[in-house]
């Protein structure tokens, strides 16, 4: 951080980080329009599904769950980016986290918003989704607390609430500063969001305490959320789902894909907003190492999960296992291994190859691999049930593909709008750092 060691430079930093908030380029508008078009197409597909019936999706007996649930697990997994980077690094007081945290926390909130939609999209009667909320209906009928789906609803709504607060807290000093320097509707919005922040010592202490507290809480919630998502599967008695390893396996996978998503977001922000001075090689290098670590952990879990199933040689499990590693799902399985293990291991494991570019490539591979992993967990198990007479083959339809594609553009869209309204890098954290540095010197 030698480049930013003067308070004068801090002002320049502020100017640079505020620039995207105040100026909108034609390119930005074009990208937003493009993303919005795909998102609208996805909304249309969903509307068509609501009107016609969920049968327009490719799901069938016995594959009652398919890529809607794959997307659900995938996006909830992505949401772990914010939690891990931000909460762990904040609690351990790692200095290099500062330019990374807000980008990560925003991913969490948006990925949760998207992931949380899928349990609703996949319902047969989506308009009754609120029957799953953990309070009694007008018929005084409580939902069934024994159902993992109810744990899901409870966990995810808690996580979304918590991570929204966690995104909002460190935003307060920045919006307060923005309120002082903007005019018009922006000023009114920022002022409302700054909840009367004046920057007194007492407020700083309260904020510091609240952020630490939320970091601790959100960490526990995040681990439990993805464990509960895993339990949707492992609580059932379907072959290869009923596995005790699924909780930690899913949490590790979630953090793995979360880091990958964060790396991609950072690379894009760095390029488009010219923030090379803030998001440096150093940050990418550290995150790459974390990604490599998670890749190894993921590989370990995958071996543990599959080796035990293969060695146990139980016929019902072997039907699913065989379909995965050498049957109709084999191309996806081996693509997953390459994407999740081989590529990150080579690109990030060899120091000479570890650059921002290769880290981004590896991250894209990891996202593809982790999506495939969830597909390989959900679909083969349901296709190869316990009675061979009921086996069935699933293929997605244009509706499912459209809605899935739209989630990616929605994510990008939400992110772009967020970056337009709020500084994507927490400016005040820099300024405190600058103050610390200058007081030492």
């Amino acid at each position: 951080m030698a480049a930013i060691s003067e308070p004068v430079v801090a002002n320049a930093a502020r100017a640079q980080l505020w620039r995207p908030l105040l100026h909108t380029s034609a390119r930005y508008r074009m990208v937003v329009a493009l993303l919005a078009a795909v998102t609208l197409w996805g909304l249309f597909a969903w509307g068509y599904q609501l009107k016609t019936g969920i049968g327009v999706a490719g799901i069938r007996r016995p594959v009652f769950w398919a890529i809607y649930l794959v997307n659900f697990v995938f996006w909830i997994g992505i949401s772990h980016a914010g939690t891990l980077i931000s909460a762990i690094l904040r609690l351990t007081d790692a200095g290099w986290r500062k330019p990374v945290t807000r980008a990560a926390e925003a991913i969490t909130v948006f990925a949760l918003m998207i992931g949380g939609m899928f349990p609703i999209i996949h319902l047969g009667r989506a308009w009754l989704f609120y029957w799953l909320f953990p309070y009694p209906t007008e018929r005084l009928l409580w939902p069934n607390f024994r159902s993992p789906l109810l744990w899901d609803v409870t966990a995810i709504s808690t996580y979304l609430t918590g991570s929204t607060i966690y995104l909002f807290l460190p935003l307060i000093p920045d919006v307060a500063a923005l309120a002082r320097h903007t005019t018009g509707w922006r000023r009114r919005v920022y002022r409302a969001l700054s909840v009367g922040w004046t920057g007194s010592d007492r407020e700083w202490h309260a904020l510091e305490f609240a952020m630490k507290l939320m970091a601790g809480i959100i960490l526990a919630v995040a681990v439990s959320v993805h464990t509960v998502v895993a339990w949707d599967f492992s609580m059932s008695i379907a072959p290869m789902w009923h596995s005790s390893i699924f909780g930690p396996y899913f949490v590790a996978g979630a953090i793995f894909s979360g880091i990958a998503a964060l790396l991609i977001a950072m690379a894009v922000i760095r390029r488009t907003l010219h923030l090379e001075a803030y998001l440096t090689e150093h940050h990418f290098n550290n995150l790459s190492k974390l990604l490599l670590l998670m890749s190894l952990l993921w590989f370990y879990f995958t071996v543990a999960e599959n080796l035990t199933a293969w060695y146990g040689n139980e016929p019902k499990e072997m039907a699913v296992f065989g379909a995965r590693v050498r049957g109709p799902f084999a191309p996806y399985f081996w693509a997953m291994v390459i994407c999740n293990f081989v590529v990150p291991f080579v690109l990030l494991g060899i120091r000479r190859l570890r650059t921002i570019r290769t880290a981004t490539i590896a991250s894209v591979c990891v996202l593809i691999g982790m999506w495939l992993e969830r597909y390989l967990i959900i679909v083969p198990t349901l296709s190869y049930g316990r009675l061979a007479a009921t086996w069935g083959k699933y293929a997605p339809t244009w509706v499912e593909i459209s809605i899935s594609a739209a989630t990616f553009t929605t994510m990008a869209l939400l992110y772009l709008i967020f970056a337009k309204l709020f500084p994507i890098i927490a400016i005040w954290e820099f300024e405190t750092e600058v103050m610390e540095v200058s007081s030492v010197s």
Partner: protein
Amino acid sequence: MSERTKHRWAMAIDLDRCTGCQACVAACHAENNLPLSDPESAAKGRAVHWIRVDRYYEGEFPEVKVKHMPVLCQQCDEAPCEPVCPVYATYQNAEGLNVQVYNRCVGTRYCGNNCPYSVRFFNWFDPVWPEPLQLQHNPDVSIRMGGVMEKCTFCIQRIKRAENDAKDEKRDVADGEIQPACAQSCPAEAMVFGDLNDPESKVSRMAGSGRSTRLLEELGTKPKVFYLQRGA
């Protein structure tokens, strides 16, 4: 709980008698207002048959033996479909029946995934019947809307009618008085329905027979459908 209630309905199917004629399947369709499917949707796995006849082939061609097995909801005592439903759309009633409440169902389809027998069916669309078949609906059975799960009910409408008749006449339901559509239509009389709480009932005696087994019994689901066949 089942010991304290008056009835515990069950079925015994003698596989040595089953000819695989599918009369039970047709009867079930007529009795329970099952939606019809065309070849296209059936190929997509969208056909609804609350009872189906699974075929198992033994031996190599030309020495092939076909075994038929009618599979319907096994009305498990420990039904895996029940605890996973978030809205209590499926639960165990006092007579041990695994019932489905269509109005409560929101269509998570979790029950369908967790049923090892794959006997749960989903309404992918609102059902339609080609003219004039909509006129032959059974008035005792509700039509299910799109987006909800359904499955074999052991013809609960027939059970309730018999129970009410017996109550009105201040007597017990006689053994054999209730016949689900499948059992009634079986020309080989392979299917027997009755009360497990009555040790003298035909189904109790068949369930206790040395030929009696239950499907995927090792999962601990405690099904109330008993399959009878000679030892292998």
